[in-house]
């Protein structure tokens, strides 16, 4: 067996050493780690390797075309994100970020369901710590809700995995497909991390509450690992086409209304992941290539946008649309990077998504899915509308907010510069990305009609934006939030509990009285003197059959026994009545034995 080291552990174990380093040494070390992880990954030939045995199951590491694309994207963005966060001194966030990135690599290279699950949970935990490390009250609450939602998803996933391992006798993680209960549970567990509606609200709730640098990290990993596991386990599952199409469309309405620009980016993150989910659902070579390529591109342009908005937030202290405006005067370089991100997410020709998202839309065309095609086209125009225009417009132009912040710090500019360069590189020269995709690529993005169609779509989307702005129809940016499905567990459930509280607590009281007081008391009473209790019972039952003269006596005896059963020693039964009751029991037992 070849000895090799899982790339995930380079980052996770490497993270544990970060606390022992200080200042520049720590920064240098953190920059070297992803590079080391990259070379470790490079040194392992594509194959599946058994690592160790755990409870009679092989834990394995799988490196193939599909997992490699995600692995490269994750290592790349760890490097870029670290440069962006070089000014941050928060040790907790640094360690959590590296454990988080390592866990994502662990999920992607897991060959079996057990190690997949372990890394899956580690991903959740470390993400929670990233959210908490901002230290605000809002981030505490959001982190806790994030943890609860994902632990819930993790438990469902675990239930599905256990069922599946019992059914198939194998822990291998390969194609699963939607058939039995176990596969539905596993899909549900994956769907929560992919933010498939209505299970998406955790993303919009938690990510904008993390720190500026934390959000850059968070936006890149969780949803993309979910895309990887869906592509691996559920390619060609038709349900995903419908869910993905809904995912692309509904968030853009929220994004138009949302005032917090990082939250706008979260909605567009769901929208972009929706395209990938559609691609996985279609499951053809073109569609899967598109989904994977788009995931790679999305990691770059989405983090670029988060970095640009983050830089603005770093300098001004806010990312609310109605508090910003006119920043082009003092932050022109950030503006340029933001525009590159905006053009990339909007699939402008020569920018990354033009070469990746269009593969998915073309796949719906080739499969003759009219409605899905139209929805994705609408979502494409919509994402340009809010992420492509709204974000740069409200930060850098719109009304002059009077803010004159400095340009972003150099480390942020370098990180954004690298991401921006790669976005353009993929757009101009998509062959490089195409060459690492799981299937051979025959797709040609740059045809005259595709370029013209896409440009017209985007031009007219911006024309609509301009028209609505000039006519003042566009809804103004306000200090407000918009309800989403997290309402159900943040307000709905507490209200339901409050509503059901009175009757339920009364029922609880009754049950408590019956089971915790009356029943134990009777049992104790019975246990103190069982024979007396039985005698009382038998006498009470026999009462109607006694003659009048003995009735009064018997009644007296019962009352006497009841009054002091604990201390009162009964006069022994007569031999006759004792034998009689024993015979009765034996007869009942015999009857019971023969009947059943």
């Amino acid at each position, binding site marked *: 067996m070849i000895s090799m080291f899982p790339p995930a552990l380079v980052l996770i174990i490497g993270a544990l050493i970060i606390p022992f380093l200080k200042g520049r040494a720590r920064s240098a070390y953190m920059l070297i780690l992803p590079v080391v992880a990259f070379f470790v990954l490079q040194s392992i030939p594509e194959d599946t390797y058994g690592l160790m045995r755990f409870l009679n199951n092989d834990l394995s590491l799988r490196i193939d075309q599909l997992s490699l694309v995600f692995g490269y994207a994750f290592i790349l963005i760890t490097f870029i994100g670290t440069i962006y966060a070089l000014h941050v001194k928060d040790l907790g966030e640094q360690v959590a970020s590296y454990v988080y990135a390592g866990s994502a690599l662990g999920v992607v290279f897991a060959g079996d369901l057990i190690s997949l699950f372990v890394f899956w949970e580690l991903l959740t935990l470390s993400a929670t710590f990233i959210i908490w490390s901002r230290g605000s009250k809002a981030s505490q609450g959001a982190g806790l809700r994030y943890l609860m939602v994902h632990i819930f998803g993790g438990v469902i996933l675990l239930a599905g995995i256990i069922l599946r391992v019992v059914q198939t006798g194998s822990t291998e993680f390969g194609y699963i497909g939607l058939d039995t209960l176990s596969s539905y549970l596993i899909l549900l567990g994956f769907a929560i991390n992919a933010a498939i509606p209505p299970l998406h609200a955790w993303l919009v709730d938690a990510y904008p509450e993390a720190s500026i640098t934390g959000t850059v990290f968070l936006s890149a990993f969780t949803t993309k690992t979910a895309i990887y596991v869906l592509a691996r386990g559920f390619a060609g599952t038709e349900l995903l086409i419908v869910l993905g199409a809904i995912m692309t469309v509904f968030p853009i309405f929220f994004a138009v209304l949302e005032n917090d620009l990082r939250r706008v980016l979260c909605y567009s993150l769901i929208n972009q992941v929706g395209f990938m989910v559609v691609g996985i659902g279609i499951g053809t070579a073109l569609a899967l290539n598109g989904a994977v390529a788009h995931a790679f591109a999305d990691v770059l342009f989405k983090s670029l946008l988060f970095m640009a908005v983050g830089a603005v937030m770093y300098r001004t202290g806010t990312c609310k649309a109605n508090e910003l405006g006119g920043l082009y005067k003092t932050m022109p370089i950030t503006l340029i990077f933001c525009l590159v991100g905006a053009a990339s997410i909007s699939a402008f020709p020569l920018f990354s998504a033009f070469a990746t998202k269009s593969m998915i839309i073309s796949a719906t065309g080739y499969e003759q899915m009219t409605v899905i095609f139209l929805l994705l086209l609408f979502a494409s125009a919509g994402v340009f509308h809010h992420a492509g225009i709204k974000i740069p417009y409200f930060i850098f132009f719109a009304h002059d907010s009077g803010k004159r912040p400095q340009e972003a710090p150099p480390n942020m500019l370098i990180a954004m510069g690298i991401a921006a360069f790669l976005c353009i590189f993929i757009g101009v020269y998509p062959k490089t990305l195409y060459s690492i995709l799981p299937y051979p690529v025959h797709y040609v993005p740059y045809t005259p009609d595709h370029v013209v169609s896409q440009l*017209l779509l985007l031009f007219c989307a911006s024309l609509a934006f301009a028209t609505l702005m000039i006519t003042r129809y566009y809804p103004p940016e306000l200090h407000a939030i918009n309800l989403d499905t997290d309402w159900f567990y943040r307000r709905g459930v507490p209200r339901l509990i409050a509503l059901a509280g009175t009757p339920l607590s009364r029922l609880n009281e009754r049950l408590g009285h019956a089971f915790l007081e009356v029943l134990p008391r009777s049992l104790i009473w019975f246990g103190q003197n069982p024979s007396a209790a039985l005698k009382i019972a038998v006498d009470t039952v026999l009462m109607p059959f006694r003659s009048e003269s003995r009735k009064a006596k018997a009644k007296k005896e019962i009352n006497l026994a009841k009054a002091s059963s604990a201390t009162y020693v009964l006069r022994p039964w007569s031999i006759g009545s004792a034998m009689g009751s024993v015979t009765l029991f034996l007869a009942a037992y015999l009857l019971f034995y023969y009947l059943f």
Partner: protein
Amino acid sequence: MKKKESDFFDRPKNLKAMAAILIAALIGLLIFDFFVHKHPFFGWDGLPTFYAFYGFVGCVLLVVIAKNIRPFLKREEDYYDD
């Protein structure tokens, strides 16, 4: 030392020039759309100006719908704060 601020996008002359360039480009694209060789998936998506029409109408609808659902979704910023 304070660098001189740019006010490029605040001058009406520049804005007008940019708008003119963009509108000219749009018109150019629309004309080109009639002559370019199409590979439509469905047929109707190969019609000239389909994408232009769809992009404009789609985005207007997007805003109209968003604006109309806002009253149902909008809450105070401290809505969830206890």
